[in-house]
């Protein structure tokens, strides 16, 4: 066979999400990561989440998502007929009037309130356009999920998810945030069943990820935790801070233990669970 044919079958592997892309691609079509930028890994082993270039387009199912802006990035979704996404309603920036909205039935959602409102997940169904953004500077973390993947995410950190992904949440007891206190926190759990889906998070500040080996662990400030593979365990540990004389104080840290990925954010914006 002639060499051009062989070359056209060559694929570039995205360093962030491992998807295969055509050789001429500048950004990964599944997660938007620039393909011409090498992984940025710190000496201590944290990998910087790829900075998605302005106006990059990401494909999922038959729909697309365009990432716009670099201060508080907007995820603009063009939904095809038959595709749907779900999200927390307060992240909607604008929408076409013609895109239907429904609520996702949730068990236990009534017990969980946010900003004085019951915790509800809204669903937008194509065709049409709808856009999302958040309330503070940060980065979009695009996680294409393949069948069999399970990811746990800090509450209120997910921006949107495609309808192929199953959603549930778990309560993590005892995990209090040093800066904000609170009665513990919820974690959103995203599971893919039959077909691949797209999950987009908004991390405040900068986002870093590392992959822990089985049994390897690291201590995190709970306010920094953003996401983890569900194979990674998270336990609360109290660290005694002695003052040398009387008393002293304790701080709680989250011990996360591999195997799997864990992601952190550099700015602690915490939306309290009421």
């Amino acid at each position: 066979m002639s060499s051009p044919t062989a070359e056209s079958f060559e694929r570039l592997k995205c360093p962030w999400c491992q998807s295969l892309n055509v050789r001429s691609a500048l950004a990964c079509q599944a997660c938007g990561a620039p393909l011409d930028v090498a992984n940025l890994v710190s000496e201590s082993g944290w990998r910087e989440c790829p900075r998605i270039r302005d106006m990059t387009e990401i494909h999922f199912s038959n729909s697309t998502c365009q990432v716009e802006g670099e201060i508080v990035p907007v995820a603009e979704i063009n939904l095809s007929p038959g595709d749907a996404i779900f999200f927390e309603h307060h992240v909607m920036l604008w929408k076409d009037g013609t895109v239907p909205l429904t609520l996702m039935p949730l068990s236990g959602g009534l017990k969980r309130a946010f900003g004085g409102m019951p915790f509800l997940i809204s669903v937008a169904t194509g065709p049409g356009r709808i856009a999302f953004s958040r309330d503070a500077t940060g980065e979009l973390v695009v996680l294409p999920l393949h069948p069999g993947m399970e990811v746990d995410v800090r509450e209120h950190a997910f921006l949107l998810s495609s309808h192929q992904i199953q959603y549930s949440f778990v309560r993590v007891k005892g995990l209090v945030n040093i800066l904000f206190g609170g009665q513990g926190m919820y974690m959103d759990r995203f599971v893919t069943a039959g077909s691949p889906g797209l999950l987009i998070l908004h991390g405040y500040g900068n986002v870093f990820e590392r992959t822990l080996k089985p049994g390897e662990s690291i201590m995190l400030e709970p306010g920094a935790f953003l996401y983890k593979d569900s194979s990674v365990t998270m336990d609360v540990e109290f660290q005694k801070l002695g003052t040398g004389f009387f008393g002293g104080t304790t701080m709680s840290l989250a011990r996360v233990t591999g195997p799997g990925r864990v992601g952190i954010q550099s700015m602690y914006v915490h939306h309290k669970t009421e």
Partner: protein
Amino acid sequence: MFCETCGSQLVPDAHFCGTCGAVVKAHEPADVLPVHAAAPPSLVAVPPPAPTAARCSWCGSPLAADTFSCPGCGGKVSEMAMGTRSGWLQLPGRKDMAKLQFGQSTCQIEGVYVPVADIRLAAGDSVYFAHHVLLWKDPDTNITTMPLKGAWKRMFAGMPLIMTQAEGPGHIAFSRDAPGELIAVPIHPGQSVDVREHLFLTATGNVTYDWFNTNVWFQTRNGDDTETHYPVGPFMDRFSGTAQPGLLLLHAAGNVFTRTLGPGETMLVKPTALIFKDPSVQMHLHFEHPQVGFLSWGSWSNRYLWLRVIGPGRIAVQSSFERLEGESRSIQSASYATETRW
């Protein structure tokens, strides 16, 4: 005069900086020839562009063929067609230290996280601003308060909203309290723009300022108290051009997008994301009720609150927004609103 490399004060007519040794670039006319500074703007206006010249996609200023950034708003020419798939136009990026010209004065925009508008006012030029955005000024830049009709009704952070005026010659700089973008809106003669309150940074003296009631509100009930909420604020600022072109500077949180709506074209936007609109753009509340198949909770939870904007005209939104006050409560009454039930 200050060194452009290290910022040290220079002796007049210096060719090199005494501190860092950098070569001093050619002086600006206003620095070497103060007589020109007082000349009427018409005498020293920018040369008219060639008839075929392109225009800035953001502010409409004519662009010379060889420029890299727009003289009116500082936007990069190479980023001017950054439209999203759905037709929003992104505010073109700006080179750090980009310089805008107005009258005889200049405004340099410094920094990229929370940009500063650093203004060199020539004699005879002036700008006005709300007191809380002042970052620094020369000790001898003269500032006075500006008389405003009915301004005592408006408060910002517990203080009456007083417009303060700075007169040239001198330097003065402004910035805001959140990471975001500085928007330069050149105001042409006869043009007006309506701005959501507290986004205003500064405007040149030849832009007139007025404000009006938005008439976009809803009332909620909490026990015996009735609270009135204003999703786009009780008032909006209106800036209008006079005989001479003026410059309006706004600060928006996050990224900025604009689109021009055709006559009758509508869009639903988050009320707190609105930055500005043309006066021809109408707006009112819109309630959207999602379809709930499984069980019916109180009406207070099953709705989204939008601002419906209706063309013709231009609107701009910011990607970062405050939470809407009172959105979660039971709404007793509201200004004119449309409704969709799915």
